[in-house]
């Protein structure tokens, strides 16, 4: 498999920041929109960096870094209409950003104060799914609902290269194709599933998986925010238009560790990293904006300032995040009354009260 993504790679902005064109996909953005994308990318990267730092400082139990995948996430997230619904994995912090989920709510999950965090219905952004592949079927089911409601909306399901080996992901392709539901399968191929390289999951490019199920599959430069935006917009329109599912393989690279508990030096060589540094998703946009006079150093500085302010807010917000009340673990096990949970909660509270009252132990 070609390390550079091969000729099938859809690109609109080269790593050198040169605006190129593609026969099937193009996009025309206003200067504001272009600057907005740059801002998204920078702020999202800053969220990631800050969260990583907070984990190092012991404020978070874990963090799954998105470093290198900003364009894939911002580009696809910005392609969504408000009524569209996104199903993330545990790494879609950039998509969360585009759905107006406060990054602090993401931190809450990794800090261990909640297993969820935000209101999926308020943001049309599902909760993070940690079990690999499960969310792809949820996405198809949600799209079945949209289909039944006759709504003008589509669903996007995020998953990784490793996830393509899971039965559930392949079943989601079967159901989506057979029901012809409005869903876009967005695979961020960051070349790694923890320590396992792509070769452990497939011997052909992942976008071709769609051929086996009878819907279109394309490979886009995942580090090119313009191409990702263009391709995802097209796929979502295709879905809303009733033409069924489409698979997008965003060809990118996991620049960081799998998570803060991972040590990539055990399994991959620095050379790859260097090669991919040259394809940085942010740098190319900055060069393009500067060269085409769409943004000046003052603008770039203002974004930096905004990022700095955001970082400060996250740091303070995270540190001051209260722990949940212990008894809250009993709160939502069931939506309706359940005697066993009630009884256990009572035992739990009486037991803890005994300490408060300086009980025997």
């Amino acid at each position, binding site marked *: 498999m070609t390390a550079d993504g091969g000729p099938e790679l859809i690109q609109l902005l080269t790593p050198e920041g040169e605006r190129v064109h593609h026969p099937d996909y193009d996009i025309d953005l206003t200067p504001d929109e272009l600057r907005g994308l740059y801002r998204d990318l920078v702020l999202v990267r800053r969220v990631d960096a800050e969260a990583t730092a907070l984990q190092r400082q012991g404020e978070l139990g874990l963090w799954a870094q998105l470093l290198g995948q900003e364009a894939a996430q911002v580009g696809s997230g910005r392609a969504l209409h408000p009524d569209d619904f996104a199903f993330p994995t545990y790494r879609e912090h950039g998509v969360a950003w585009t759905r107006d989920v406060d990054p602090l709510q993401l931190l809450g999950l990794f800090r261990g104060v*909640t*297993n*969820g965090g935000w*209101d*999926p*219905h308020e943001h049309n952004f*599902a*909760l993070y799914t940690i*079990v690999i592949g*499960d969310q*792809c*079927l*949820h*996405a*198809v*089911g*949600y*799209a*079945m*609902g*949209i289909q*039944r*409601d006759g709504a003008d909306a589509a669903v996007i399901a995020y998953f990784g290269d490793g996830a393509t080996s899971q*039965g*559930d992901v392949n*079943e*989601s392709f*079967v*159901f989506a194709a*057979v029901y012809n539901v409005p869903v876009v399968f967005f695979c961020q191929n960051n070349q790694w599933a923890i320590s396992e390289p792509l070769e452990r999951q497939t011997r052909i490019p992942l976008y071709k998986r769609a051929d086996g199920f009878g819907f279109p599959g394309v490979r886009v430069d995942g580090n090119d925010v313009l191409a990702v935006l263009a391709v995802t917009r097209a796929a979502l329109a295709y879905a809303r238009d009733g033409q069924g599912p489409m698979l997008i393989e965003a060809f990118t690279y996991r620049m960081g560790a799998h998570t803060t508990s991972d040590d990539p030096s055990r399994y991959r060589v620095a050379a790859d990293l260097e090669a991919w540094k040259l394809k940085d998703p942010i740098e190319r946009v900055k060069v393009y904006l500067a060269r085409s006079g769409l943004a000046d150093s003052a603008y770039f500085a203002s974004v930096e300032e905004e990022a700095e302010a955001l970082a400060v807010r996250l740091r303070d917000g995270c540190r001051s995040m209260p722990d949940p009340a212990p008894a809250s673990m009993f*709160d*939502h*096990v*069931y*939506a*309706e009354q*359940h*005697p*066993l*949970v009630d009884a256990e909660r009572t035992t739990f509270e009486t037991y803890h009260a005994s300490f408060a009252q300086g009980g025997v132990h």
Partner: protein
Amino acid sequence: MAVTTMAKAINAGLRKALERDNKVLLMGQDIGKLGGVFRVTDGLQKDFGETRVIDSPLAESGILGTAVGLAMRGYRPVVEIQFDGFVYPAFDQIVSQVAKHHARSSGRTPMPITIRIPYGGGIGAVEHHSESPEAYFAHTAGLRVVSPSNPLDAFVMVQQAIACDDPVVFFEPKRRYWDKGDVDESLVIASAPTPFAARIVRPGTSATVACYGPMVRTCLEAATAAAEDGTDLEVIDLRSISPLDTATVAASVRRTGRLVVVHEASVFLGVGAELAARITEECFYSLEAPVLRVGGYHTPYPPSRVEEDYLPDLDRVLDAVDRAMAY
């Protein structure tokens, strides 16, 4: 009020649910034109259409996973698993998503999914068609697990399960599908007793026999036989396994002093273990004998030609009662 079979009673209950709430959907293999391998959904696709009564691709995880997505969109999926032994491919979606999502979402996203599973043995079937996996689900927080024992309960409880905002695993005793009973289809479920409470189906004084699903009939027959030897058994139809109505059982045991629990599932870590542990704790001073359990053995469900020797029957129930009385 009409006499009907359990299969037809469930069919009627599903029909009511589909009529009452257009968010209710039926999903599963062969539930459309065929009406399911047991005909429980007979005629429903014809009357409610293919968008509400859906023949799914052959993939249980896919069925449950899409049900989760539909629930997130505000639907109330009622999923049919064709046979007990085929629910396992969906185990991850059930345990990690269906059961936990409401808690994960801090109550924002309920999972009103009903999972119908024809279960148990006694129909001379091939492997994987006679299992009793209820303990797996009852051990899983976030799920409710119920099992009707007669047509009227089946008719009412399936509607209550669908109306419940929690996921309910609805175990249908397949070998009782053809048992007949009175069903009043005009009955309004709101007025019916909660499906999560046990019911004393035969009052008695000598000993308590707790059971559910297919074993209720067996235990009632045992009680009749025991009565001839002058043993007056109180038979409790648990109806719900999670939650487990220990209060009703404990009250009975305080009167009788003896308890025998009966189910088809393997005794080892079966529902009887939990009931025995709780009742012993709650009624320690009332019990004149240890709680005895009658159930399947710690073996795979055997070939059908010997299933009668595997399944608890009248004699094994009476044998346990005798042992309990002997203390």
